[in-house]
Each structure stands twice: as structure tokens, then as C-alpha cells.
């Protein structure tokens, strides 16, 4: 295949394909430098682990101008013997198609779900297009639990630097776990496996004009799967290394969309999480191994300055959201020296629950409210970095576990205030 499938002729192309067994989707936007590797890894994964299945790779593109879709068409492993394959392999189908609607990962996923649904696939997976550490085994680990163990949703499990995934570690994972009772460690990991049945269910939901169409898609997929009683597991994929993010990427926009989606889902599934008081681990697949990770640079002084600026200027917003004692605690924190700067777990959990409640009760304009969380989040990250400076990965995991317990213990207070 040499040319991109245009959106208007994709229907007839689908008809010519008929049905398929598995589909792997890659959302992209200007990822020409990395997507070739991802496509080859997926091809190798199909060839190695699913040689007899009819497999489709779908690139759902957001209008790249750097030739991403051309790279998708051209990228291929010419000689399968180079990856030690000698058995007969079914040729796989590649589709590169632009998506329409709100620009964002969620809209790209919607296109993939539509194609999966029309091909009637049994299992699907989605992987990011900027991954450098993806291997063919990722495809096996994301697809096989669905095909062979009848799971509906496979969340990823990565080894990450202790300072990475801070929104996940400090908000999304503990909150999702406390609310829905499932210990899915990377609920917004970005690389997921799921059944055709679940893809159909996702498509039927009326969320595609909301923040779910953007960064909110990951938490929405995970929460929807858990809250609707789909069978959930996780697979250990090793390290997650991807292209460095744009340093100018707006943290507050990211936080707004992820936290906003998480809080909105609390409203949607209130009847589900009300009755859950503890959490259970989910089945985990994959072989655990340690990976050397690149060091991460953190500018603590600047982080604390941002926190102090927030406390100084955004008090008028927070005083309607946070309990008075908590606001006073943050105000006092601006006077302490850097080495004594700490936001304890209890204060952080109260903060997140207060913001969730304020979003639910519409205390303030939603965007103003959620964006004003950014300085507090930066303060918490600074506190966490200082607390774990000399900790090993396991010790950091223990600290996250402790935070999760505080989230679970304080859930009763949240329930009482939720109304």
C-alpha cells in the first residue's frame, strides 16, 4: 500500500477487507520521527505472536504536516528472518486515515473504534506514536489476555522514573483506586488492549464532544471499563520511553483535562463508587524486570516559587473551595524554608477531594477552578521530589501505596459531602 486511505473512500476499502481478528491503532500528529519504529514493532508483533490471525494496523492521524502518514505506509520489516521468524505469516493490512472532530487523542481513538467495530474484530490495542521503547512483545501482552483469557480491558504497567507520571501517581491512580476499588496502576498509561465488545461499548457512549476527545480519553476508557464491570487486567510492558514532550506544553491544560475528566466521571458513576469501601488488585501479566532509566532534571526552587505565587494570588479562588484550615496551612507553607517545605498526604488528599466536590457542586467556573489547581499540584510534586530524593523505586512505590491508603480512608468524608 503506497497511498493514504482517504476518509471518503475508507468505507469501500473496509468492505473489501471484510472481517478481521485483531486491530492495533496508532493515533498520531506530526510523529514522523518515531512512528516508523512503532509501525515496525507492531508488524513484528503481529508476525511473531499472531501469524495466523487477520491483523490490521490503523493510523488515525490529526492532520500531520511532516509526512507521518507516508512514513506509516513505507515503514515495514522487509526480511522477517531478521527477527528470527521462519513460519508462514499472514500479510497484515495497514490503514492510515485522518480523523475528524475535535483535535485530540480521543477523536483519533474514536476513529479506531469505528474501524474495529466495522471489521468486527475480537481484540484491539492502541499504542502511542511517539514510543521509543515499544517492542513486538507489547502487542502480545496487550492482545493475548483478551484473545486467550477473555479479559475485556488490558491496562499497561510500566517501569518509570520515580519522578515521572506525577499526575498518575498523585491524583489519578490513588483516586481511581479509592473510588472504584481496582488497583490499576497506570490508568492513563496511553497503551491499552481491549475486546471488540468493549470497543463497541465505547462507541455507543455520548462523550465525543467533551474533554474525552482530548487528553481525557485514557482515564475515561479505564474508568468506563471498571465501572461497567468489564473484566480488567494489566500487563507489564517494561520501560516507557517516548519522545521528549514539548517543554512549552501547557501543564495546566493537561491537568485541567485529566483532572476534569476524572472528576466528571465521579459524577457519572457516583452510584457505582458509593458502595465500594476497599480495593483489590487486578490480574497482572508479563515478566517483571528492572530497566535502567534516564535521570530526570527537576528545578525545585522554581516549583516552590510557583506554589507560593499561587497561594499569594489565587487565595480568592481557593477560599471557596478548600477548608479554611487547609488554606491557612498552604499560606503558612509559603514562609517556611525550602528544606522544610512539605505537603503531607492528608493535606493533599483533602485538596483533591475538595476540588472534586467543588467541581461536582459547580462552586466556580469549571475551567477556572481546575486550572487553579496547578500551583497546588506543582507544590505537591516539589514536596514528593524532596521526600523521595534518596528513595529507591520500591520505596517510592511504598510511599504511593501509603498515599492510596489515605485516599481510601478519607473516602467516607467525601461520600458525606458529596450529597
Amino acid at each position: 500500500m503506497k497511498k493514504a486511505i482517504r476518509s471518503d473512500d475508507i468505507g469501500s476499502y473496509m468492505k473489501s477487507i471484510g472481517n478481521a481478528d485483531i486491530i492495533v491503532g496508532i493515533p498520531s500528529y506530526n510523529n514522523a520521527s518515531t512512528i516508523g519504529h512503532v509501525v515496525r514493532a507492531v508488524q513484528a508483533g503481529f508476525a511473531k505472536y499472531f501469524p495466523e490471525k487477520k491483523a490490521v494496523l490503523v493510523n488515525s492521524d490529526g492532520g500531520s504536516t511532516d509526512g507521518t502518514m507516508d512514513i506509516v505506509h513505507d515503514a515495514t520489516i522487509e526480511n522477517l528472518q531478521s527477527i528470527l521468524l521462519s513460519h508462514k505469516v499472514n500479510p497484515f493490512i495497514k490503514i492510515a486515515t485522518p480523523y475528524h472532530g475535535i483535535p485530540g487523542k480521543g477523536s483519533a481513538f474514536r476513529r479506531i473504534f469505528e474501524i474495529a467495530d466495522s471489521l468486527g474484530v475480537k481484540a484491539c490495542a492502541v499504542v502511542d506514536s511517539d514510543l521509543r521503547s515499544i517492542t513486538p512483545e507489547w502487542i502480545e501482552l496487550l492482545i493475548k489476555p483478551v484473545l486467550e483469557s477473555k479479559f475485556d480491558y488490558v491496562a499497561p504497567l510500566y517501569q518509570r522514573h520515580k519522578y515521572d507520571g506525577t499526575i498518575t501517581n498523585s491524583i489519578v491512580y490513588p483516586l481511581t483506586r479509592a473510588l472504584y476499588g481496582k488497583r490499576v496502576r497506570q490508568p492513563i498509561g496511553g497503551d491499552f488492549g481491549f475486546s471488540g465488545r468493549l470497543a463497541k461499548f465505547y462507541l455507543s457512549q455520548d462523550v465525543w464532544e467533551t474533554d474525552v476527545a482530548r487528553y481525557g480519553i485514557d482515564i475515561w476508557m479505564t474508568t468506563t471499563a471498571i465501572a461497567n464491570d468489564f473484566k480488567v487486567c494489566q500487563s507489564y510492558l517494561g520501560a516507557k520511553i517516548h519522545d521528549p514532550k514539548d517543554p512549552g506544553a501547557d501543564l495546566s491544560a493537561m491537568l485541567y483535562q485529566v483532572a476534569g475528566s476524572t472528576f466528571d466521571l465521579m459524577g457519572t458513576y457516583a452510584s457505582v463508587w458509593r458502595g465500594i469501601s476497599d480495593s483489590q488488585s487486578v490480574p497482572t501479566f508479563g515478566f517483571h524486570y528492572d530497566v535502567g532509566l534516564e535521570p530526570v532534571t527537576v528545578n525545585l526552587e522554581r516549583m516552590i516559587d510557583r506554589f507560593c505565587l499561587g497561594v499569594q494570588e489565587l487565595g480568592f479562588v481557593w477560599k471557596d473551595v478548600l477548608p479554611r484550615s487547609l488554606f491557612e496551612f498552604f499560606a503558612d507553607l509559603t514562609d517556611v524554608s525550602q528544606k522544610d517545605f512539605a505537603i503531607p498526604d492528608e493535606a493533599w488528599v483533602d485538596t483533591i477531594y475538595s476540588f472534586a466536590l467543588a467541581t461536582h457542586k459547580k462552586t466556580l467556573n469549571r475551567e477556572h477552578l481546575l486550572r487553579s489547581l496547578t500551583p497546588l499540584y506543582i507544590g505537591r510534586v516539589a514536596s514528593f521530589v524532596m521526600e523521595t530524593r534518596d528513595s529507591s523505586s520500591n520505596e517510592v512505590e511504598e510511599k504511593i501505596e501509603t498515599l492510596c491508603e489515605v485516599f481510601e480512608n478519607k473516602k467516607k468524608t467525601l461520600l458525606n459531602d458529596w450529597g
Partner: protein
Amino acid sequence: MNIIERIMVEPLERFYEKLLIFLPNLLTSLILLVFGFLLGVFVKWAFNRIFKAVNLDGLSQKLGMRDALSRSGFKEPLSLIISRILKWLTIITFIIVAMQNLSIPTVEHLVERMFLYLPNIFIAALILILGYILGNFFGRAAIIASVNAGMASAGLIGKAIKFTVFLLSCTMALEQLGIGKDTIVIAFAIVFGGIVFAFSIAFGLGGKDIAGDFLRKKMREPKGENDEIDHL
């Protein structure tokens, strides 16, 4: 007899005739006044219930109006304040109608002019209220965005945006009322242009070194100064 009749009786008769015409009008006007007052009380009660049902006070809290009102000395909730305004608007409207009903030419003329001017007052008030709400909204958005961008002068930026939006609405309101139409527009243009010009000079001359330092830093920002945390 004839003279007395013409001097005394005829005017009294004419007065009596006019009184006969005027008295029913007066009575109608009095009824209109009483009805207007009762309707005003009802309007206040009804709108207070409606505003409570749509949670106007919650919305005013969200938009920061409640705090602003309480800072300005209004301790009552917004729903009550607007209901009261509507009550008095109803009463005033009926007073005007009642006055017109008296059929006194001077009063009629005055009332007619008042009626013609009244929409301007309403629109001007609406512009002011809207300007205040938008000023607060954009001011808050600006301050949050500036804090998240790490700008030390975030508070100042927020206040400047809020003030500018409100100033713009004041200008529009005064223009609507026809008070110094051209003067207001020219004054606004001078003030606004002056502020922009002052900023230009301040940044161009006063902040020359700061701007230079900022650009130099941006052009060759030392590696490792930025956070490399992957937040998601």
C-alpha cells in the same frame, strides 16, 4: 349680575366641569397606583422564587459577584436585590402611567420624554452589569493563566484586565445614555492609548535591560534548568 356671573360663576362652572373630567382620571390614577404597588410586591415575590429555583445566588457566587456586592455594602443575596429592583421598576412604571392618565399637558410631555429615555437607562444598566460580570470573569481567567505561567505580576495583570473591561463597559453605558458622547469615546481612546503607549515606553526604555536579559536567557537557556518530568 352679568359681570358677577362672568367673573365668578362662569370660571367656577368651568372649573367644576374640568374637575368633573379630572376626578375620574384622578381616581383611575389612584387605582393604577395601588394596583402598581400590589403588582410590584407580587413581582418581587414571584421573581425571588424563580431566582431561587434557578439558583441565581449560586451562580453569582461562582462569578464572584456576591463577594463584590458584599464589599460594596450589599449584604442581601443577588436574587433579593434584583427582585427588589424589578418591584420598584413595576411601581415606577405604574406611577408614570398614572401620571399620564391625569391628562395634564406638561406632565404628559415630561412623561413622554421619560418613556423615550427609559430604554437607554435599562440598556446602560445592563451594559454595566454585563461589563462587571465579564470584567470579573476575564480578570480571574487572566490571573489564573498568569500564575500558571509563573508571572510574578499575575495579580496586577488580572486587575488590569478586570479594570479595562469594566472601563470599556462604562464608556459604552455613558455613550448609550448620550452623556458627552464624543467626549467619552475620545477620553477612552486617549486613556487606553495612553496606557498602551506608557507600557510601550516602559518596556522599550525602562525595561530595556530586563527585556534583553529575558531574551538572552530564552535564546540560550542552560540545559537542565527546565523540569523534565513527564506528568502524565
